[in-house]
C-alpha cells in the first residue's frame, strides 16, 4: 500500500465527512474531505493515488454525474458509492459506471474499511501497470524502425533466416539487430521481450 494514497470523501453533510475522516484515519490512511463534487474536481489532479468515497445524493453535481465526468476525462480512480436510500436502481447505475463497491448507510466500519483497502489496492495495481507500460513504451521509442521490424518478427516466432530473407539482409545483420533490440528493451530473454510487447499492446493502444 502506497503511503501517499489518499481517500477523497465527497459528502454534503459535514458531520458525515468528519466522522468518516475520524474513522478512516484510525487505520493510517490519509483522508481529504470535500463538501461537493465541484470542490473535489477543482482540487484534484489526475495521477494522485487513492480512492473516492462518494455520496450519491448531493446538491449540485451528483455522485453519478461526477463518475461520468471522470469516465469522460479518462481518469481512473476507484469509486465507492455511499447510499442512504437503499436506492437499488441508482446503485446499479453507479456500478455500471465503474464504481467498485457501494455501501449503505448506516454502515459497518469493518465493511467500509475493507472496501477502502480493496479500492486502494486496485488503484495501486492500476498505477503500476500504467507505469510499466510507460517504461516499455519509452524503451520501444528507442528502437530504430529496422529494429522495430525485426522485433515484431522475432516476437511473432520467426527464425533469423526467415527474417533475413524477408528483409533482404543477411542473417548476421538480423542477429545484430536482434541483439540491439534485446539490449534496448532490457529484456533478459525472448520470453521477457514477448511479455513486454504484449503488455505494450494491451495498454498502449489507448
Amino acid at each position, binding site marked *: 500500500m502506497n503511503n501517499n494514497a489518499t481517500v477523497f470523501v465527497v459528502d454534503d*453533510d459535514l*458531520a*458525515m465527512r*468528519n*466522522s*468518516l475522516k*475520524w*474513522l478512516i*484515519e*484510525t*487505520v493510517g490512511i490519509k483522508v481529504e474531505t470535500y463538501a461537493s463534487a465541484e470542490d473535489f474536481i477543482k482540487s484534484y489532479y489526475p495521477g494522485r493515488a487513492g480512492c473516492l468515497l462518494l455520496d450519491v*445524493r448531493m446538491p449540485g453535481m451528483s455522485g453519478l454525474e461526477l463518475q461520468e465526468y471522470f469516465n469522460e476525462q479518462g481518469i481512473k480512480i476507484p469509486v465507492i458509492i455511499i447510499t*442512504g*436510500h*437503499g436506492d437499488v436502481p441508482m446503485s446499479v447505475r453507479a456500478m455500471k459506471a465503474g464504481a467498485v463497491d457501494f455501501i449503505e*448507510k*448506516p*454502515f459497518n*466500519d469493518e465493511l467500509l474499511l475493507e472496501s477502502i483497502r480493496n479500492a486502494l489496492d486496485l488503484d495501486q495495481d492500476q498505477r503500476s501497470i500504467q507505469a510499466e507500460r510507460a517504461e516499455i513504451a519509452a524503451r520501444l521509442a528507442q528502437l530504430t524502425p529496422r529494429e522495430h521490424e525485426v522485433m515484431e518478427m522475432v516476437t511473432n516466432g520467426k527464425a533469423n533466416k526467415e527474417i533475413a530473407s524477408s528483409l533482404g539482409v543477411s542473417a548476421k545483420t538480423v542477429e545484430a539487430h536482434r541483439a540491439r533490440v534485446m539490449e534496448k528493451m532490457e529484456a533478459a530473454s525472448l520470453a521477457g521481450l514477448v511479455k513486454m510487447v504484449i503488455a505494450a499492446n494491451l495498454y498502449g493502444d489507448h
Partner: protein
Amino acid sequence: MSVIIGVFCGLVVWAMLDQVQPQALRSIFLEELENRLNQQARETLIRFDNYVLAHTSTARLLANHRQLANYLEPIYWYKGDPDQPKYYRSTPPWLPSSTLWQSLVRPSHILLLDSDQRTREIYQLGERNLPVELEGTNELLLSERRVQASLTTLGDRPYLLISETAEDATGTEMGSLMLVAPIDEQFLAASQQGVSPNGVLVGILDADEQRFLASSDPSRLGFQKYLPEVEANYSVTAQSFSEYDGSTLNLQFATLVPHTVVEEIRDRVAGLERRQRLVAAFTFVSVFTLVFYLLSERLNRILRRVSRFSQRALGSKQPVIERGNQLFVLEDWIHQFIQLVRETREEMRQQHETEMHESEMLKQAIMETALDSIITIDRQGVIIEFNPTAEQTLGHSRDQALGKVFVELIFNQQNQPQFLRLMDDVLSSRDQHPDEMRHEMTAIKRGGAAFPVELAIKPIRLKNRLAFTIYMHDISNRRRIELEIRSLAKFASESPNPILRVNRRGVIIYANNASEQLLGYWGCERAQTLPLYWCNRVSDILRSGRDWQSQVTNNEQVFSLLLTPVVDLGYVNIYGRDITVELEAERQAREHQQELIHVSRLSTMGEMATGLAHELNQPLSAIANYANGSVRRLQASGRESDDILYALGQISAQADRAGEIIKRLRALVGKQAPVRRVADINDVIREVCSFVEFEARKTGVEIEQQLSLNALTTKIDVVQIEQVLLNLLRNALDALLEIPEDERSLVIQSQCNEGGQVLIQVLDSGTGIKEKDQARLFEPFFTTKESGMGMGLVISRTIIEDHNGSISAQTRAEGGTCFSVLLPSDRKNDEQ
C-alpha cells in the same frame, strides 16, 4: 163515363156493320150461290153423261157378243124383203142373259138393223111400244150413221138411241145393234144414282119451246111444264149437251134447285152473320171500355205525377188544375209544363254553362299550377295537352310537345316497351286501385338527362274517343331522401353496438348484427320472446314511459343496456353497449388511481419517511462512525478503558438499531403493486399495531386490541388498509399527547356488524374533535396538528371508499374520538 162511351161506340160499330155487312154478305152469298148452282149443274150433267156412257158400253158389249155373231152367221137380209121385222117379247137368241142390266135402267127396246138402217128384229123389254119412227127404215139414223149415242124426241118424248156396228162370225158387217132408252123420270133418277140432295131435280128442257120434256120427279115437275112457271119455285140451270147432238132438237140438261133450299141457306148465313156481328160489337165494347178506362186511369196518374213533379222540381209554379175534361186539363198542363220545362232547361243550361266555364277555369288553374306534370294523350299516344309543370320539368315547350308521340318524346329506347305495357294494363283493367296505377320509371329531359319519375295513367273514356291523362311526378328528391332515410336506417344495422326493438309482449322485432351476443345471453332468437324477467321489465317501461338502464354479463362481456320506450307504437328500443373494454379501462383506471394513491402516499407519508430516513441516517451514520473511530483509536493507543469501550459499543449498536427502524419504515412505504387478496382483518390490525408499537410506547400508551374471535375475512389491498389503520392509530396517538399520560388509552376493535360488514373502530380517550372541525375532517390539507399535512384522512377515505367501504368519526360520549371503518365482508364481495 168510360162505360157509356164504350157502349155508345159499340152501338155505333154495330149499326155501321149492320149497314155495310149484309149487303156485302148478300152479294157474296149470291155469287157463291151461283157458283154452287153451276157446280151442281155440272155435277149432275157429268153423272148423266157417265150414265149414258154406261149404256154405250153395254151396247158395244152386246154388239160384239159371240151369241150375236153366231146368230148372224147364217142370216142374210135382202133389201127387197118386205117382211115385217121379227118381233120378240122374250129374250131373243142373239142376246146373252139379262144379268147385264143390273145397275142400269133397262132400255125399252133393243133393235137389230141391217146395213141400210132397216129394222129387221125388235126385242121389246117393257110395255112401252116402239115409237113408229123406228119401224122400217130408220131414216133418222141414216143421216147420222156415225153417231153412236144421240138424244132425240120420238113422239114428244125424249129418247136415247145408242147404235153399235154388228158383225157375224165371219167378220162380215151385217148391220148394227141399237139400244132404245126413253129418257123418263126413271132414267134421270137412275142417272143421278139416287144422289139428290135438298130436293134438287134434273130435267130435260126444250130450249126452243121453253118447256120440260122430262124430269127426275114428275110429281114435283110435271110433263110439258114451261120454264117460267117452273122458275117461280126453282132456280134453273140449263146446259147444252155437247156429245149427243143426234137430232135437230135443241135439248138442254136442266138442274133445278128449289128456292126454299136457297132461302134456308140464306137465312142460316144471315143468322150466323148476325151472331158474329153481336160478338164483334160486344168484344169491341168491352175492349174499348177497358182501353178507355186504362187510358183515363193512366192519364190521371200522369196528371198527378206531372203535378207532383212540377211542384217538386219546378218549385211553386204549379199548373192550374181546372175541373172539367181531363184531356183538356192534361193538355193545359202539358202546355204549362212544357213551358216550365223549357224555362228550367234554359236556366239549367245557363247554370251548366257557367259551371262548365268555372270548372274549365278551375281545371286550367289546376293544370297550370299543378306540381305534377300533367300530360294528356289520345289513343294513339299523341300528346294533346301539356301543362306548364311538364314544360318546366321536361324542358319541352307546350307548342313543341303537342302532336308529338308521348313515348318517343319522354322515354328512351329501353323504357318505351315498359310504358306501352303499362298502357295495355291500364286498358285491360278498368278499375284499378290508385296505388296500382303508380309506376316508377325513368324519363328523359330535353337535354337528354334522365331522372326518375312516378307515373300514373288515368284513362278518360269520352263519348266517342279514349284519352289518357298521365301524371308524372319528379321523384329525384324523394329518391334522394329515400336513399338518405335508407342510409339512416342502416345506422342501426351498421352500429357496432347492439340495437334491438321489442314489442309490448317482449317479442324481438328487430336486432342488428351486433346483437348476437345479447341474444345469446337471453337465449333467444329474433322474433322470439325475451325471458320472463325482461318481458316484465318491458311492460313496466312501457307503463311508466321512462328509460331504464341495466347491465348484463355474458361470457366475460359486459353490456350496458338502455331500454327506451316508444310509447306511441308500443315498442321498447334496447340500446346495448359493450362496456367490457370500458370496465377494463375503468379497472385499469382504478389501478392507476391506486397507483396514484400509492404515489401520493409516497409523496406524503412515504416521501416523508424516506426523507426522514435519509436525514436520520446522516447523524446515525456519523454517530456510528465516531463511535467506531473512537474504539479503534482507543485500541490503537493501548489506553483502553473497558467501560468506555462498552459505552462506545452501545452507541454503535443503538445507531444500528435506529438504522433498522428506518429500514422497516422504508419497507412499509416501499413500492408494492396494490393487490386485493382475501385477508383476515385481525391479522392486519396486529401487523399495524406492531408498526406503531414504538410510537405508542413512546407516548406511554399500550394499544388495546379487542379483536373478534372469528376471522374477519375481507378482500382488500392489505398495504392500503394497513396505511389507513396506521394513519388512524397515529392520529389517535397524536391526540393522546394532549392529555395527561395517566388518562391516555387507545383501543382498536374489530367485529362483524348486523349487516355482515366488517367494522373496525379506533377509540382514543383524547380531547375529541371540535364541533367546528367535524365537517372539515376529511378535507384535504385540513389539519389540527402543527406538523400535519392534512392528507392522512383524505387518503384514508379514498382508500376505504375504493374498497366499497366507509369511514366516519364520532366524538365519544365519555370523551375522545371514535373512528369507524366499515368494509364489506368477503362473502358480500362474492355476491357482488
